[in-house]
């Protein structure tokens, strides 16, 4: 009998189905990977298990017994505990205080500090989690903080540990240490659920993997019997009618965007881009494939001008823009469809017309001498609403009232109102329905005909294969492959994305 069984879990959020009759089973003593794209419903499922969210339908069984988990305390009582992606530690307290928080050993009404430190020390030695119980959490590295989080779970005697993207914040060395700890835990009879979208880690440590996509279970596989590219396909595959392949419009000798040996660090100061070089020609769509978290976000930010490279150069239409700011780059013909539509791409409380002019309000005809020209702005907005078929009552409506597809049309209307020299399109169809996806694809192809250089970054392999003239594959911050469309297949892309470039070479 399965140790944990979640049956028919369904959860709705406004406008989306986060989980749709998900069945999920975990055996005792295994490390079970839960994989999927961002927004596939992994975190929601685990939050339901941990009692942070209430499911709209479905049941949870532990050792075959139905259980109801209404809050995290109930989950902890059942031996289910979770390490969150963003740690929940009190920085000003010591390690021992954090670990025992809420469950302090007492002597009479007072906290028995000696026993507390002693227990935490014993626990940390037992599982090889090296931390000084007396150290303040604020002075610890991220890896050590994570060890504190795991200690906290062990102190509460968790039998089932949920780790939400535990490696996302760690250096490779720290990841190896984490794996060592996990192996020791399962050897001891505990069970772990490992949420991730990094395939290398799934292959390295997990016994089985369950793949979620768009809130549904695609399948559960035994890792030893599976190739990583199979899992990659399960993660990103999408049944969609893709636009028909068209003849190339590329002008090979006219690169409009050149990226030359770019190195950049991520927010933690760790290297995220390690010498990226490529060029995108006029009239070409270059697709960037890769498992999420391999440097795509940093590359987009570097291209847009919100992150400056440590080394390397960016050239737009023959002009070096490495040190230029976002606004200047836009004036030179850069356009961006950002990854995170609702935060980077739109200002939800603002009016539609304000969203539309946010990148071009600085000059005529929208403003003169620092004063806005409302008539021009309204005319522009009305034209954009008509041209891009935005279903909306008028230009003064707040964008937050629009549906996902309509909202993305607003982003596209803004960015493509004048054909740009270079377009960075990051996940342009994420979360969109079929119709809206088609619309976005057609817009990209239309732009390609007008000699725009397009860099398409997508987690959807089918989309990349259908639209791209050329495919680049990014892995751990470096380009590991460049394929012409004729050579590109899902299998080869899958191998490259999984970091196995050697096997992907044509035989």
């Amino acid at each position, binding site marked *: 009998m399965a140790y944990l069984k979640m049956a028919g879990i369904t959860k*709705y*959020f*406004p*406008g*989306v*189905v986060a989980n*749709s009759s998900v069945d999920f089973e975990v055996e005792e003593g295994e490390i079970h990977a839960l994989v999927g794209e961002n927004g596939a419903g992994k975190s929601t499922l685990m939050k339901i298990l941990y009692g942070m969210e209430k499911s*709209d339908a479905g049941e949870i069984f532990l050792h075959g017994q139905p259980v109801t988990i209404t809050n995290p305390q109930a989950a902890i009582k059942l031996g289910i505990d979770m390490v969150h992606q963003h740690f929940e530690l009190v920085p000003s307290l010591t390690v021992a205080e954090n670990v025992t928080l809420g469950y302090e050993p007492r002597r009479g009404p007072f906290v028995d500090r000696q026993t507390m430190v002693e227990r935490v020390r014993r626990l940390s030695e037992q599982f090889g989690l090296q931390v000084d119980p007396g150290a303040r959490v604020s002075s610890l590295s991220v890896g050590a903080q994570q060890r504190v989080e795991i200690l906290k779970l062990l102190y509460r005697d968790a039998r089932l540990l949920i780790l939400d993207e535990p490696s996302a914040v760690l250096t490779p060395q720290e990841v190896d240490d984490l794996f060592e700890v996990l192996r020791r835990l399962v050897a001891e009879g505990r069970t772990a659920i490992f949420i991730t979208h990094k395939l290398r880690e799934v292959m390295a440590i997990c016994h089985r993997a369950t793949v979620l996509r768009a809130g549904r279970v695609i399948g559960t596989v035994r890792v030893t019997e599976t190739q990583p590219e199979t899992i990659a396909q399960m993660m990103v595959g999408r049944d969609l009618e893709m636009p028909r392949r068209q003849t190339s419009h590329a002008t090979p000798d006219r690169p409009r965007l050149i990226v030359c040996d770019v190195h950049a660090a991520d927010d933690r100061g760790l290297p995220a881009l390690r010498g990226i070089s490529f060029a995108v020609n006029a009239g070409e769509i270059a697709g960037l494939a890769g498992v999420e978290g391999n440097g795509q976000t940093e590359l987009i930010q570097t291209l*847009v001008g*919100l992150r400056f490279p440590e080394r390397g150069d960016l050239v737009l239409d023959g002009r070096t823009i490495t040190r230029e*700011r*976002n*606004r200047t*780059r*836009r004036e030179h013909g850069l356009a*961006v469809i*950002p990854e995170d539509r609702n*935060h*980077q*791409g*739109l*200002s*939800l*409380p*603002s009016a539609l017309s*304000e969203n539309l002019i*946010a*990148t071009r*309000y*600085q000059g005529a005809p929208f*403003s003169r001498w*620092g*004063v*806005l020209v*409302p008539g021009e702005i309204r005319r522009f907005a009305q034209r954009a609403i008509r041209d891009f078929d935005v*279903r*909306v*009552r*008028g230009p*003064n*409506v*707040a964008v937050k*009232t*629009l*549906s996902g597809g309509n909202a993305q049309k607003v982003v596209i209307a803004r960015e493509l109102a004048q054909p740009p020299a270079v377009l960075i399109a990051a996940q342009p169809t994420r979360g969109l329905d079929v119709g809206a996806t088609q619309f976005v694809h057609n817009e990209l192809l239309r732009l390609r005909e007008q000699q725009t250089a397009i860099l398409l970054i997508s987690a959807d392999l089918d989309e990349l294969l259908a639209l791209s003239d050329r495919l680049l594959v990014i892995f751990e911050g470096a380009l590991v492959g460049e394929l012409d469309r004729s050579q590109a297949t899902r299998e080869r892309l899958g191998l490259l994305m999984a970091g196995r470039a050697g096997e992907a070479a044509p035989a």
Partner: protein
Amino acid sequence: MATQRTPLPYWLIAPILRGSGDVWIGIALWIAIGALVTAALMRARHRAAWRGALLGAVLGGVGGALLLAPLWFGLVSLLDKRCAHCGTQTRPDAATCPRCGHAFTESPRLDAFVAALVNLARVVMTIELALLAGGIILELSGKDALDTYRVLFEWGLGTPRARANSLLAATPIIFTGLGTAIAFRAGIFNVGVEGSLYMGALLAAWIGFTFTDLPALPLIALAFVAGALAGGLWGLVPGYLKARLRVDEVVTTIMLNYVAIEFTSYMVQSGPFFVPGMANAMSKTIAKQAQLPQLVERSQLNASFILALVTVVAIMILMSRTRLGFEARMVGDNPLFARWSGIMVGRTILLVMFVSGLLGGLAGAGQVLGVHYNFTARFSRGFGFDGITIALLGRNSPVGVLIGALLFGALRSGGTTIEVFTDVPIDLVDIVQALIIFFVAIDLNLDFLSRRRRAKTDRDAAPASAAA
């Protein structure tokens, strides 16, 4: 009592206060207004049948009779929209029905009208509830609440002179309210307008008693400009710290307030502006021609009130029609989006903080040139902090700030005389003011009710989109 009381036609404001005039006319008037508005709103928003509208009329009438008519406007306008197509209830600001996608056909003009009504109701409701709660406190402590409020209204609004004094009290807080509001609108929690006010006042006073040879107009203009600049530059300090070094502005502005207050006190107590032989800590008196002309006899209401009104219009134009205003609104709505769109967020913060401080400086200069005629240490009775309340009350809109400041002015000016005529301590005004802040903070007006309802509609709507 020595001074004559001037009874007001209370029935105009609130029938419950009775007083002179025909109470019944007042009650009938409010019943009519309440019934009409409620019925109309029931019909337009709720798509209620005539029976519903009739019910609304009755409820509105009862509400009106109890002086809570504006409260009814607010509550009724909160009522959900109902989709004409499938009958689903949805939140009042929805554009389409979440279940069947049917687009609501209300004209934008009606929407704008309802929005304005809701906003007006919000301000009035907040103050009414505060007065109501204050009244209950008064009754509980054994005072005559109705009589206290009569005194408050009489001395806030009763005579031409009282009205002038209310406007006088409103003048500085119009400036500080505007200054706070534009910073809030840009997402900057600037509570340092008080500091700018002191810096502006000091510099205006210095100009006023130094350049005594200048004729009136250039001298006054120079004093205002210098005061405004001093306030603006003072605002730039926390602005720079926030924009370039990401230092939290709440902490820096609070601390810089103390710096400004103590620095200006030092200047007149023992510093360069110290005047030997003066008992109080105040500077020399400014030149006669620099003193602003008074607008009404026997009141200190002066030309700076007119400047305040002009400033309201100017800030309205600045925020809605200029590039800086657009940038400020975008940064306030979504700073991340602003960055991605190429808006220079740091520069916008600096400019907004400069303008915010500028308005604080104007407030200080206006008080020096129009009321005190010198710089007195610690002369401000929390004008900067009243500005915060007013900005919150007026939801950061210039007109809202003006309305809020006028109400506060009346409250303050009427409140000072409460102790003379009743045994109620002047602290009552502070209590009412605190209650207003309290009710603004809980924001019962829209969010409280609609948030709960939103959670409910979202749950109802989800299965439909799942099926689609």
